[in-house]
């Protein structure tokens, strides 16, 4: 049940527990216990909301930043990753295979705010060799959800 439960709440974390139990074909108490267990195990890390900020009047700028770094003896990339992810404006930090080492996603109020984060905080770090900042112009799809288009039911209303 664990895998199916995760697939359901990954798409809809607000689903009612009773309803969740019904569609999984189990008892409500089992759902509650399983979710508590997965929270403890750190499998479920949070219940977030997917927001298309573009549709609000709030200005936001997001960027992807590629970072090349020098790994530290005995620590690998963990230390530098930690230094970076502690900044609250940093949304995600991934260690990446390929042409660079870390991929950071960042959110700020303006282009200026993002670029000053890069020039004032990120680039000067000792182990950072270089950065490349890509501003996001439009989000078409995020977390598996298509933002640009609404689902339309084009089927005939009645068919055999």
């Amino acid at each position, binding site marked *: 049940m664990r895998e199916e439960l995760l697939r359901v709440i990954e798409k809809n974390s607000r689903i009612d527990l009773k*309803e969740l139990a*019904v*569609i999984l*074909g189990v008892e409500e108490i089992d759902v509650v216990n399983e979710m508590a267990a997965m929270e403890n195990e750190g499998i479920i890390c949070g219940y977030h909301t997917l927001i298309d900020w573009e549709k609000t009047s709030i200005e936001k700028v997001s960027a992807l930043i590629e970072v090349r770094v020098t790994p530290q003896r005995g620590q690998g990339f963990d230390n530098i990753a930690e230094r970076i992810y502690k900044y609250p404006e940093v949304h995600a930090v991934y260690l990446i295979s390929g042409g660079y080492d870390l991929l950071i996603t960042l959110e700020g109020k303006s282009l200026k705010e993002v670029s000053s984060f890069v020039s004032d905080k990120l680039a000067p770090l000792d182990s950072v060799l270089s950065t490349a900042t890509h501003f996001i112009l439009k989000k078409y799809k995020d977390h598996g959800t298509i933002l640009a288009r609404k*689902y339309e039911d084009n089927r*005939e*209303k*009645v*068919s*055999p």
Partner: protein
Amino acid sequence: MRNPLSDRIVGIKPSGIRKFFDIVSEMKDAISLGVGEPDFDTPWHIRDEGIYSLEKGRTFYTSNAGLKELKIEISHYLERRFHLSYDYNKEVMVTVGGSEAIDIALRAMINPGDEVIIPQPSYVSYEPCAILANAVPVIIDLKAENEFRLTAQELEDAITDKTKVVVLPFPNNPTGAIMERKDLEAVSEVIIRHDLFVLSDEIYAELTYKDRHVSIAEIPGMWERTVLINGFSKAYAMTGWRLGYACAPAVIIEQMLKIHQFAIMCAPTTSQYAAVEALKNGDNDVAMMREQYNQRRRYLVNAFREMGLPCFEPYGAFYIFPCIKEFGMTSDEFATRFLEEEKVAVVPGTAFGDCGEGFLRISYAYSLENLKVAIGRLADFVEKLRAEQK
């Protein structure tokens, strides 16, 4: 002027669903639980393969029986999923949907006056296709107390010395009923004893929610008596691509191919290329869609229980078939009033045979969110009717 029409075709009554369709399409704001096709889009990699085949200019006829590559994939698929062995070269043909396969299978097997046994409630085309093939349809009224499965006794009682073919429509549209191995073994014994043939419409084979679907062709002694029909519409959400297939002993396929060759030529080429991709890389898509149908199915079973509408738990297809006899009206009256008063379209059980009287077909090829809205309205309606009765 002479009458331009054939008496036989004029004598066939139009599908009962048609009348309902006309009312619903007039009502712009109606929501529906009335469709017989998946709500999912065809998975993108499958559509992509169709587009790619057009880009490559693969816009010609294929051979009559279908692309060799597709027939090979079909025979691998049937082996992998249902332990069925068919020679792609002689025992598999690709058709324009399962519908064409039903039509030509009956035409290939029937001599005038032969009887075709059709269990109902079931899909709307078996009876007219049997009539068009010069057969005499013999209807078995399936029973709610048997969960709408076909029993050996019911079959035995319908057989005469003219019986030739038995239609086996499981997993079933509209009831959601399935036939498990033990059920199939019981009817197979009767079929073999009376030397009959089976047209097994397994278009919903991928959509079962208990164990995997069992084909009657798997039962010992039945392969050589069975025309198996399947397709891409339901499993891969490919209804509009119009692609199905039939598998049977070579002697039958050979004759079916003759009709297909003269009436159709070949199934759509683009769809055939897309279908190859579906069979090669689509297992995961099918599993994901099945999981979601199953969640909706459980939601509905629970909702009907809470509403107090009698309904057996369906384990196949994407339909649930609740009983509305307590309200003292016909299925048609119920569906019409429900549509007028609550703006929700459902299909009266009688669209699938007279014995569907007293039942409704509710489709769960809708998102949970949409189902919730529609079922909320049904609950209100049921409450209103019960209050009226007091």
